[in-house]
C-alpha cells in the first residue's frame, strides 16, 4: 500500500511540474542514501544499571525500497542488539527485534525512549554526558552507516531499561 502511494505521489508531482508523464526508474542502488538524524546515547551516570544503555536516532530512507535495520556495532559494548517494545502482561517490555526494524521507502523511523532502540549491553566503559559514542548501523541491503552519537542526560523515566536481562521473558 505504501509503495502504491509513493508511486502515485511521484506521478502527481510530475503532473504538477507540467512534465509529460515519463516515470523515472524506481529503486536503484545508487539512488538516495540512508541517513541518520539526531543520534544520541543515554548517559550511564546515575543509572541503576551502568552496564547497559541505549542509542536513539532517526533513520531516514529517501529511497524507493524498504530496508530493515538489522544490527549495530559499537566498540564500547560487548553486546549490541536492535530492540523493539512489545506488550506483555499489560506492560511494555523490550525485546530483541529478530527481523530488525522496518524503515519504509520514502519515509523514516524514529528510535526513541519508550520505543524501538539500539541496546548497548556489557559496556566496557561508562558514558558520561558529552562523550561521543561511535556506532555502525547495519541494514538488510548490506549497507552500513557510521554514526557518532553524543551522550546526553536521560530525561524520561528509566523503567523500560531496568531489566537486567537483555531479552526479558514475557513474565518478567
Amino acid at each position, binding site marked *: 500500500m505504501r509503495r502504491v502511494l509513493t508511486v502515485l505521489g511521484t506521478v502527481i508531482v510530475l503532473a504538477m511540474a507540467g512534465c509529460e508523464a515519463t516515470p523515472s526508474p524506481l529503486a536503484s542502488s545508487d539512488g538516495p542514501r540512508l541517513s541518520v*538524524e*539526531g*543520534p*544520541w546515547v*543515554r548517559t550511564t551516570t546515575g543509572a541503576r544499571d551502568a552496564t547497559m544503555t541505549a542509542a*536513539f*536516532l532517526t533513520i531516514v530512507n529517501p529511497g524507493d525500497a524498504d530496508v530493515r535495520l538489522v544490527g549495530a556495532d559499537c566498540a564500547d559494548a560487548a553486546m549490541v542488539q536492535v530492540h523493539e517494545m512489545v506488550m506483555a502482561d499489560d506492560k511494555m517490555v523490550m525485546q530483541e527485534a529478530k527481523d530488525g526494524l522496518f524503515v519504509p521507502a520514502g519515509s523514516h523511523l524514529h528510535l526513541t*525512549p519508550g520505543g524501538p532502540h539500539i541496546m548497548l549491553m556489557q559496556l566496557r566503559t561508562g558514558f*558520561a*554526558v*558529552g*562523550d*561521543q559514542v561511535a556506532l555502525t548501523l547495519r541494514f538488510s541491503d548490506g549497507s552500513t552507516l557510521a554514526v557518532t*552519537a*553524543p551522550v*546526553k*542526560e*536521560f*530525561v*524520561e523515566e528509566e523503567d523500560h531499561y531496568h531489566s537486567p536481562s537483555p531479552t526479558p521473558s514475557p513474565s518478567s
Partner: protein
Amino acid sequence: MTGVSEPTPEPAPGNGADGPPRLQRRRLLGYAGVASAGAVVGGVAGAGIARASTPVPVAPQPAVIRQDYSPHETHQAGITTPVPAVTRLLAFTLTELAVEPLTKLLKLWSGDIQALMAGRPIPGDPTPDLARTGVSLTITVGLGPRVFSLAPLRSKRPDGFVEIPAMAHDRLQERWCGGDLVVIVAADDATTVDYAARRLARDAATFARPGWVQDGSWRGTDASGEPVTGRNLFGQLDGSGNPSGDLLAQTVWAADPQPWFAGGTTLVVRRIQMDLDFWDRTTAERQEKVIGRRLDTGAPLTGTVETDALDLAAVGESGAPVIPLDAHARRSHPDENSARRMLRRGLNYTSTEVVDGRPVTTAGLVFLAFCADLAEQFVPVQQRLDANDALNDWTTAIGSAVFALPGGFAKDDWIARALFD
C-alpha cells in the same frame, strides 16, 4: 537561510541573473543588518520597481520576522542578522576550567544549535513539539576571557580581546559581570526563546554553572513587518548610525585572524540602567540635545531624515554648535573618534525584583557592541563617553562582560573546533 514556512514566490521570468527577488532582498539585509533601515527600505523599493515590469505579482517578504537562519555560514547568525523581538543572553562559568569539558560542551551545543535552528528538536528532546521553523531563531556562542588562560589556548586569544577597563561612571554589580561562555538566543517569540535557552542550559549543566541571564526585547519592524530602526526605552531611535555594507564587515569581523577565529568577532555586553523617571521629567528639547538627534524621526538636529549624516560643524544663530559638544551622538561619532566604529545591537530590558519585601522595577538597555577589535574600537570610544557625554546623567553601566565569537561551523563539524587543534 531560506524561509521554510512560507511559500516562496516563483522567480519572475528574466529575473534569473539576479536570483529570485527574495534572495536579492536577503542579501541586502545580510549587509544592512540591524542598522540602516533607510538603506534597506530604499533597496527593497528598488527591487520592487525592478519587479514591476514583470507579470508575476510578488507578495511582500518579511525580512525580520518569520526567518530561518543557518549556523553553517562564514559568520555565526545573530550578529548582523536583523534583531527579532526577543533575545536572551545566558552566561556560564565552567565548573572545571579545562579543555576537555569545554570541548564536550561545545560539541553538544553544536548538535543542539544545528537542530534547533533547523526547527528540529535536539537529540533526546523531552519537549520536541516546541521546535519549529520560521521563527527567526538564532543561537550565537561566545567564549569568555578565562578560556584563553588555559595553557594550550594562551596563544589563541583574538587580537584586542580585552576586559573593559573600569569607567568612572560604572556602578558594576558582580552578578551582571563576566562569564566563561555566553549563548545568545533570539527569535520572533518568547516561547521559542524559552524553549531553546532551556535545552542549551540543560546540556551545559554537566560542565558549567549558570551565571547571569539577561532578557531583552526589540521592535525592529513597522506595522507591516518591514524593517525599521527600533526604539530604546527613552523613546529614541537607536541604531541609526550603525555601519552597513563593506564598512559593517570591516567594523565587525576580525581582520587577519588566527585560523580558528576566521569569521569571528568580539562582543562586549554592557547592562546599562536608564533613569526613566528622570528622563520623563526632562523636556523634549533637552532630550534631543542630549543625543543630537530628533526624537520623532531620529534625524540629526542638522538634517531632515534619519539617514542624513550628522553635520558636526553646523552652528546656530547664537554661534553655538547645533549638535552640542557633549551630545552623545557627537561624542561617539567616528569623526570624533579616529574613525572608530562598532556594531551596536541594543535590547530593552525591564526587571522587577523584590527588595525588602517590595517590588522595585528598573529598566535599561542590554547594550551589545560587536567589534573586530575591542581594545582598538570599543574601549577608546567608551572612555571618551565616560569622560564627557550628556547622556551619562541618565545612564549607568551596572554589568559588563566580553566574549570572543568564532565563525560559523560546518554541518559535520562543531563550533570553535579549530581552537583546539
